[in-house]
């Protein structure tokens, strides 16, 4: 247990110390939120869909949590490179505990990031249907971070170096984001896009946040949370397996 705690703490300390990184990682969501939110606002309104800022804010929070948690898992590559991975791997601690500590740390950091974006959204005019729903939205952030931190660990354990990083970014992370319905409603597409968006686990996370924050959603919030937890559990087992097989 102490090993899990100390590795969780390590992730938080590293996060707190990289202030420039914190600010940099908030830049992209702010750009999406402000430029798209206000830029496409009038078109969205004319289409009779209401405020685009309201609609896109949960999507941008989901995006932030996605990026931040998947990168925390891929951070294994940095640990491998700077050697700290060896220090963890030879320690007399079950690898499962090491993986859990790291993953919990990554999840905590990405939920903090998500909450920062939520605060920014509130400042620029986003309003939830009820303030009492905010804790449930944070629960959804946690579920999203579980899925993608576990996926990140699975990928980070399998890659040897940074060369695969661009590939992962372009063919996995970006599609997950674009297909999640973060920027467009999930209803009324042709069947290829419909299938793709239903396979993407992030769709359910963002749908769930829309359900609690806006009071309207495509799926039911119960289905959303169930999908996230199931996918998260499977990926966690897979990630733990890949992590236990690392050789240096």
């Amino acid at each position, binding site marked *: 247990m102490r090993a899990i705690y100390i590795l969780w703490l*390590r992730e938080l300390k590293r996060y707190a110390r990289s202030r420039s990184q914190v600010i940099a990682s908030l830049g992209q969501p702010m750009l999406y939120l402000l430029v798209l939110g206000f830029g496409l606002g009038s078109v969205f309104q004319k289409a009779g869909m209401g405020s685009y800022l309201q609609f896109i804010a949960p999507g941008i929070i989901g995006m932030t949590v996605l990026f931040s948690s998947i990168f925390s898992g891929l951070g294994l590559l940095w640990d*491998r490179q*700077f050697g*700290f991975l060896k*220090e963890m791997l030879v320690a007399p601690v079950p690898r499962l505990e090491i993986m859990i500590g790291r993953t919990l740390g990554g999840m905590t950091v990405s939920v903090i990031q998500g909450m920062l974006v939520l605060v920014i959204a509130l400042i620029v005019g986003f309003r939830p249907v009820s303030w009492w729903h905010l804790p449930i939205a944070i629960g959804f952030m946690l579920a999203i971070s579980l899925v993608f931190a576990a996926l990140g660990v699975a990928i980070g354990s399998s890659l040897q170096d940074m060369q695969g990083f661009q590939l992962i970014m372009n063919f996995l992370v970006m599609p997950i984001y674009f297909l999640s319905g973060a920027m467009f409603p999930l209803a009324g597409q042709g069947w290829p896009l419909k299938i793709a968006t239903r396979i993407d686990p992030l769709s359910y996370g963002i749908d769930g946040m829309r359900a609690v924050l806006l009071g309207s959603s495509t799926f039911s919030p119960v289905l959303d949370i169930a999908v996230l937890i199931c996918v998260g559990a499977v990926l966690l087992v897979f990630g733990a397996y890949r992590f236990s097989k690392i050789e240096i």
Partner: protein
Amino acid sequence: MIEVRNLVKTFGAFTAVNDVSFSVAEGEIFAFLGPNGAGKTTTIKMLTTLLHPTSGSIRLDGLDPLKQQNEARKKFGIVFQDPSLDGDLTAAENMEIHGVLYGVPHKVRRQRTEELLKLFELWDRRDEQVKKFSGGMKRRLEIARGFLHTPRILFLDEPTLGLDPQSRNQLWTHVKKVNEAEKVTVFLTTHYMDEADRVAHRIGVIDHGKLVTQGTPTEIKEQTGTTTLEDAFLKLTGETIRDESASSTDMMRQFAKMWSGGKR
């Protein structure tokens, strides 16, 4: 304490360690010598559960590091050849994580951290981030960290690389101290033959993945008819210079230097 039989490790067509057998008794200091790329680090990685052997058997204090990984890991401590510190954390925090991972009780951890950081002259800088340290200071911190818990077996993979003579002297004095006082078995590699001659009880020489000879420093010198271990080593392994091809890790380091701008 360490029993290795017919150990083989191949990477594709390349055989890094080729049928190596040796044993190290409890309380012994064993130096594993060889030119670059001879298979020293690969052997240490297999002994310390970081790499699976292709074939052959290993016993650490009677335990099989392949099957009883965690029990085996409890037996040893290791100072790696290349860096293994977290640069974003301070020296004290690096020591703390190590202590917690190795189950050193809180009180002992604090006390030994202070002793060791003072011994290796890092105590004044304990609250500074490690990435601000010079190469020599990082090296000293890695060594101090390796001594934080008291293992039954201590692996030192080229521990003196990049150390000044003062720190080197400090290191070997400390190694001898824990070896004598606590009967810690030491398995070390080094390129400095005088160090091996001075510290090691027994020596094994490896070249091209094969164990060329083993014995006490005196035996090896007599065997080759030379007066110094350096000459004996050159006679056994030849005078051609070896090149190691850059590993993917090295290439990745280069890449990171280009892009991270010293972020970590």
